[in-house]
């Protein structure tokens, strides 16, 4: 498979070598949130806690803003980032909705209606056409 074969899937970032290398410290920060004492320290002072990890300033800003799409762009992996949502006490659906441009209610309703249909969501060309 050519390395670019999945680049045409819209709204999707594949956690490949490039992203894994860029996101190592961001994801390992997320990993640290598996310990209760670390969650407590993070919640007490997020800026200070993030200094423990040699992340980029952009990665730190994205964490502080809870901008999950930006975190993914900067190498975050969703299985790791989910631990930030858990630390905040949010159901994962809250995190998912935040990445789609929908409100949580709209997103939940889309799922109740059967989820996002595969039709029209296979390629970037389909998205370009849909968005005029």
């Amino acid at each position, binding site marked *: *498979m050519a390395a670019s*074969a*999945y680049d045409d*899937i*819209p*709204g*999707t*970032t*594949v*956690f*490949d*070598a490039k992203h*894994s290398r860029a996101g*190592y410290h961001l*994801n*390992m920060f*997320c*990993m640290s*949130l*598996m*310990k*209760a004492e670390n*969650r407590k320290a993070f919640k007490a002072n997020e800026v200070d806690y993030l200094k423990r990890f040699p992340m980029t300033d952009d990665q730190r800003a994205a964490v502080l803003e809870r901008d*999950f*799409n930006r975190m*993914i762009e900067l190498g975050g*992996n*969703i*299985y*790791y980032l*989910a*631990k930030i*949502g*858990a*630390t905040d*006490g949010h*159901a*994962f*659906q809250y995190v*998912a*909705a935040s*990445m*789609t*441009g929908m409100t949580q209610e709209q*997103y939940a309703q*889309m*799922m*109740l209606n*059967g*989820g*996002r*249909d*595969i039709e029209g*969501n*296979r*390629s970037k060309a389909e998205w370009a056409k849909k968005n005029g």
Partner: protein
Amino acid sequence: MARIVGGVAMSHVPAIGAAIDNGKTGEPYWRPVFAGFEFSRKWLDALKPDVAIIVYNDHASAFSLDIIPTFAIGCADEFAPADEGWGPRPVPVVKGHPELAWHIAESTILDEFDMTIVNKMEVDHGLSVPLNLMCGSPQAWPFAVIPICVNVVQFPPPTGHRCYTLGMAIRRAVESFDQDLRVLVFGTGGMSHQLQGPRAGLTNKAFDYAFLDGLTKDPVALTKIQPVEYLRESGSEGIELVMWLVMRGALGDHVEEVYRFHHIPVSNSSLGHIILESH
């Protein structure tokens, strides 16, 4: 001689575990999900397996980006539930079966599968949610468990074909173990779902149904599905379905579908479940 007496597959959505832990299983949203496993729990009661081999993916719980094994087998005496960010789930500690696990490790490695041997590991919802769905919430799990972890977090995961042939090697390993044990194999994860980015919430019922059909009608065709097709058609996390093919490969050539269940939505996912027996 040990033998494989059946295979089951199911999604392992973490929200199912949260629904159980927070006493929400009777709510209208959750009732149909758990009702879909009533037959399965009775089937399991009658089957009485001694050991379950549970194929699942670790969700950045036991393994981080420091070490990423493609295939890992748990050979410990027991496996405690992991703290995934909200405290460990209140589920029983999983008892292992070190003798059979080590035998499978040795047999599959000599069969040319490069397994990582794990002697200390916590297990997350990927393993505990399938146990809940099949067994309810007992004080202790009714059988020993051998966890087999498949990397699906870091791209690329192993191909479906590789997973299927690993299943075949596991079958050879089980059948060459000299204790009388009834072994059930779990394939977990999927079905179609995407948890990340602007396309989050994707489901594909047609893909899921074709996959369920293919497990009995033409599993070899399923092994030819390429990673990019899973990512595109079943969502970026739908690629977890390769783990179902380990289970299918472990059942041999002739299998019969005993039961299936499919339900949308469970949180962000399309939930699928199937029970297979080999003949």
